């Protein structure tokens, strides 16, 4: 069963230098109850994708394609239909809780707001649900926390408040963009474990965006890797990590400190860097940095689909392996 179907999504930003493509012809599915991890370096378009799914892109943006969710195309939504589903059917968790919490309002009032706005509970019920949710997340004194202002709480507490705000209305789709990147590892672990438990119990689907493959490897069922606005590889987490089909995925994994050889003369890293905004190389857009590049790669791009849930944008993946070259 599918929860979300993204088809041919294109996102472009209007700037002084003209149109800059942020997401290019991206298609993927998200199943019911599934956690899809999206990995990529900065500039890969993963955050633009998250904002597009939530209808939060600024007005200087052009979005094309289809995003099918619960029988409708989200990209056709007007402001009124977005208001109806945001916060109730779908919710988002950002990296920095200070930017999603209002500094002048008490934490409690902010957490229960989605429930009240969508008429899902009366204030008393909403407070009780908020208390229960915070307690479940390991907040030792949730009652006091509801009365506090964001600056009175630690980063870990604030991020839990933001997560509570997102999940209390029991959305079907949760989008989390680097939700634990600003947290300490011990706090991060607690938050991740709780989020995963919540997804499993509620049957909701989660799009989990992170540059940290270690975190994704603990959270996700499926993994999609993005480069320059395209999905370059998608598959089950284990498949992608164990047998990456795309040289970019392979390079990204091998560059991680945890994967490096301490005794190597030089640490492994991908050659070159992500080209600056707007300049997309011809053919396969990864070819200037690719260790296995061939002439055809410079002019042609090709999607290789093994099945609907396992595909790669490397045409050489089907020759057996580009790694042997």
């Amino acid at each position, binding site marked *: 069963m599918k929860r979300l179907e993204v088809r041919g999504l294109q996102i472009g930003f209007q700037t002084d230098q003209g149109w800059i493509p942020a997401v290019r012809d991206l298609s993927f599915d998200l199943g019911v109850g599934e956690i899809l991890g999206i990995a990529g370096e900065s500039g890969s378009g993963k955050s633009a994708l998250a904002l597009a799914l939530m209808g939060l892109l600024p007005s200087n943006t052009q979005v094309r394609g289809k995003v099918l969710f619960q029988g409708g195309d989200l990209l056709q939504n007007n402001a009124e239909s977005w208001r109806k589903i945001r916060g109730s059917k779908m919710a988002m968790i950002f990296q920095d809780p200070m930017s999603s919490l209002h500094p002048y309002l008490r934490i409690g009032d902010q957490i229960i707001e989605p429930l009240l706005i969508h008429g899902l509970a009366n204030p008393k019920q909403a407070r009780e649900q908020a208390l229960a949710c915070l307690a479940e997340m390991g907040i030792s004194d949730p009652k006091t926390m509801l009365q506090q202002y964001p600056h009175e709480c630690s980063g870990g507490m604030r991020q839990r408040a933001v997560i509570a705000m997102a999940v209390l209305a029991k959305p079907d789709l949760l989008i989390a963009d680097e939700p634990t990147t600003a947290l300490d590892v011990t706090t991060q*672990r607690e938050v991740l474990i709780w989020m995963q438990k919540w997804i499993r119990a509620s049957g909701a689907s989660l799009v989990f965006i992170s540059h940290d493959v270690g975190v994704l490897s603990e959270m996700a069922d499926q993994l999609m890797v993005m480069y320059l606005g395209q999905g370059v590889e998608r598959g089950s987490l284990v498949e992608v990590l164990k047998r990456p089909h795309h040289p970019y995925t392979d390079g990204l994994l091998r560059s991680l400190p945890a994967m490096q050889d301490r005794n190597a003369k030089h*640490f492994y890293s991908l050659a070159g*860097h992500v080209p600056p905004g707007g300049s997309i190389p011809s053919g396969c857009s990864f070819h200037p940095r690719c260790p296995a590049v061939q002439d055809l790669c410079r002019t042609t791009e090709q999607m290789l689909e093994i099945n609907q849930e396992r595909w790669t944008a490397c045409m050489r993946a089907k020759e057996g392996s580009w790694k042997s070259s």
Partner: protein
Amino acid sequence: MDCMYARKGGKLEKLLSVENLTVKFGKFQAVQEVNFELHSGEIVGLVGESGSGKSTLGRAVLGLTPFQSGSVKFLGQSLGKLSRKVFLKLRPAMQMVFQNPMGSLDPHQSVGSAIMEVLRVVKHATDEEAFSRMKCGLEEVGLDSGLAHRYPHELSGGQRQRVAIARALAVEPRLLIADEPTSALDGSAQAHILDLLRGLVRNRRIGLLLITHDLSVVKLVADRAGVMHRGRIIETGSVEKIWSAPSHAYTQRLLAAVPQWRR
């Protein structure tokens, strides 16, 4: 001009010796009775979570934050006891690299001119010397010297961090303190910077104090490590020892929280 700075084979020299260092902010003890040593050609990692005092410790060593008791000895001289004049003379030999190079580079100054400025002011270099040493400096950190006329915003995050490192190196420091130098960078750029820092320590025989919350970074490049918790160094040892047999309960908890995965 010769771009080589190699100081290979020099004998291991004690650069830094911190004894019973305590830093207080009002009544709050950010750093409590910390002891450690750092030698030339050595990378010491300082790991801890936010609020553990690791950044304050780094700043106190450099004299950027005053300390209340204890001592910091650099090349045998106790920093707290030096006259301002002597301290300022010694100070260029200790350099710092911060997490966010945008915060340490002037947006209105080309990166080449930022490096030449310290060469002129600290090393009293002539314009010509400063120019050629700046170019060498950029090449040493793996940047094309043609980038010298660029401004910080025209560079990638990894390139900016290289510029910050090149500027720190321009005054030929003996000790480098790097506070989360790769935390703002992605996988591949992170590996580049770590490789660069490790190479500098080997070739120039400088000592590196690497402060980070990222345990995998310390495990990869450090020779020894200290684990900080609530202002104290609760465990020290070789990286191999800490990772294979952590003795403190907090270290065990910290290591267990790191996402584990194998290919």
